[in-house]
C-alpha cells in the first residue's frame, strides 16, 4: 500500500513537472513575472540601502505571489480534462496524489526561489556569508515544504470551482503568514542584515519545520475528502 502510494506520488510529480517542462510556463511566464516584481519593488522603494534592508522580505513576498500562480496552474491542468475525477474513478489513493502535487510544487518553488535570490544579489547588492549558506538552504527548504503543503491543500479545495482565482489568496495568505515571517527572519540572519548573526536564524527554522510537518501530515489526510465529489 505504502509502495503503491509512493509510486503514484512519483508518477503524479513526474507528470506535473513534464507538463511544466513542455509548456514552458514556469520559465517563459512565471520566472519573468517574479523578476519584474523584483524590479518593481526597486522602483517603489527607490533606495539601495532600504532595498538591502528589506530584500529577504521582498524575495519571500515574490515567492508567495508566484505560488498563487503555480498552484492555480497545477490544479487547472487537473480539472481542465477531468483528470482528478479520472484518478478518483480509477481508485487512486488521494494521499498519493497529494504527495505527487506537493513534490512538483516544491521543485517549482525552489526554482523560483533560486532565481529570486540570484536577482536579489545582483539587483539589490546583498551578500551571502559563508556561515549563512546552510541556514538559508535549510530554512528555504522547510519554508517551501510548508508553502507547498498549504498550496496543495487549498488548491485542491478550490479546484473546479468558479472564482477560485480570488478565493485561493484569501484562504492561503493568512495561513502562510507564519512562513513569511519565519523565512524572512532566517534569511535576514543568513545574510547578516540589520546586524543579525546566523545563530539568530535557527529558532525560525524550528518554526518553519513544525509548520511544514503539521501541514504535510494534515494535508495527506484532508486532501481526499476535500477533492472528493
Amino acid at each position: 500500500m505504502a509502495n503503491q502510494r509512493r509510486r503514484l506520488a512519483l508518477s503524479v510529480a513526474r507528470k506535473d513537472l513534464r507538463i511544466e517542462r513542455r509548456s514552458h510556463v514556469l520559465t517563459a511566464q512565471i520566472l519573468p513575472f517574479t523578476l519584474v516584481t523584483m524590479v518593481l519593488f526597486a522602483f517603489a522603494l527607490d533606495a539601495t540601502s532600504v532595498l538591502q534592508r528589506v530584500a529577504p522580505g521582498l524575495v519571500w513576498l515574490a515567492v508567495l505571489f508566484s505560488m498563487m500562480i503555480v498552484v492555480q496552474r497545477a490544479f487547472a491542468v487537473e480539472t481542465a480534462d477531468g483528470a482528478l475525477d479520472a484518478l478518483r474513478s480509477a481508485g487512486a489513493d488521494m494521499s498519493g496524489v497529494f504527495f505527487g502535487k506537493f513534490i512538483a510544487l516544491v521543485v517549482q518553488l525552489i526554482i523560483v526561489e533560486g532565481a529570486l535570490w540570484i536577482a536579489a544579489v545582483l539587483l539589490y547588492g546583498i551578500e551571502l556569508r559563508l556561515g549563512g549558506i546552510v541556514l538559508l538552504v535549510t530554512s528555504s527548504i522547510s519554508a517551501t515544504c510548508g508553502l507547498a503543503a498549504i498550496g496543495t491543500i487549498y488548491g485542491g479545495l478550490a479546484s473546479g470551482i468558479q472564482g477560485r482565482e480570488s478565493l485561493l489568496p484569501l484562504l492561503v495568505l493568512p495561513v502562510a503568514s507564519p512562513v513569511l515571517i519565519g523565512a524572512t527572519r532566517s534569511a535576514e540572519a543568513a545574510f547578516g542584515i540589520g546586524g543579525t548573526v546566523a545563530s539568530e536564524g535557527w529558532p525560525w527554522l524550528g518554526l518553519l519545520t513544525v509548520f511544514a510537518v503539521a501541514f504535510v501530515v494534515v494535508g495527506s489526510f484532508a486532501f481526499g475528502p476535500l477533492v472528493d465529489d
Partner: protein
Amino acid sequence: MTTITPTTKSSHRGTGTTATRVIGLLATVMCAWLVVFGLILSPADRDQGDAVRIMYVHVPSVWLAYLAFIVTAAGSAIHLFGRRHSLQADRVAGASAEIGVVFMGVTLVSGMLWGRITWGVYWQWDARLTTTALLFVSYIGYLAVRNLDGTREQLARRSAIVGLLAVLEIPLVHWSVKLWRSLHQEATVLGTDLDVSLDGLMLFSLFVGVVAFTLVFVWLLLHRARTMAVVDLAAQRRLDDALIARRREGGN
C-alpha cells in the same frame, strides 16, 4: 417558480421557541444591565479615565469571538468524524462562524479605538492583535468556502476541513508573531498598556458584559442555525417538487 407548501400545519411563524424567547429576554435584560453598570455605576479609571469603559464591550467581544470559533471547530469535528456526518453540526459550525466574524470585527474596532487613547496609536504589532486580525481574515475565507457551489454534503465536508485547519493555524500564527515581536522594542507611546487594575465594581461590570454577550451569542446561534435548517429544507422541497414534476411529465 416553485412554491413550498408545508405538509403539516405548524404553529411556529418564525424560528423562535419558548427557550429562545426566554434567552432573548435574559440577553436584553443583561445588555441593559451592562449599559447601566458600564456607563453609569462603574467608576472611571485613574489613568485612562472614561476610556476604560470600552473594555466592557471589547473584552466580552474577544471572549465571544473565540468561543464562537471553538464552537465552529467542535461542530466541524462532529460533522467530519461523527458516524452520521450530522448536517445539524455543520449548521451550528457555520452559524457560529458568522457570529464570530461579526464579534471579531467589533473586537478589532473597539481595540483600535482603545489603543488610540491608551497607546496613542490605532495599531500595534502585538502577538494577540496580529493573531486576531489574521484569524478574522481566515474566518472570512471559511465563510467564503461555505458559499461555494456544490452539493450540501460536499460543502459541509469542505467547510468542516477548513474550519479545523483554521484551528491549527491559531497556535502557529501566534507563535510566529510572538517570536517576531520578541526581537523588537515595544512602542508604547503614552507609557501605559491595557492591563488595568480592576476594582470590584469594574470586575462585576465586566462579568455582566461577558454573561450578556454569551446570551446574545446563544440566542443568535439558535436562530441562525434554525434559519439554515429552513433554507436546507426549502432546497430539499424544491428538489422533491422538481422530481415529482419530472415524473408527471414522464407519466403524461
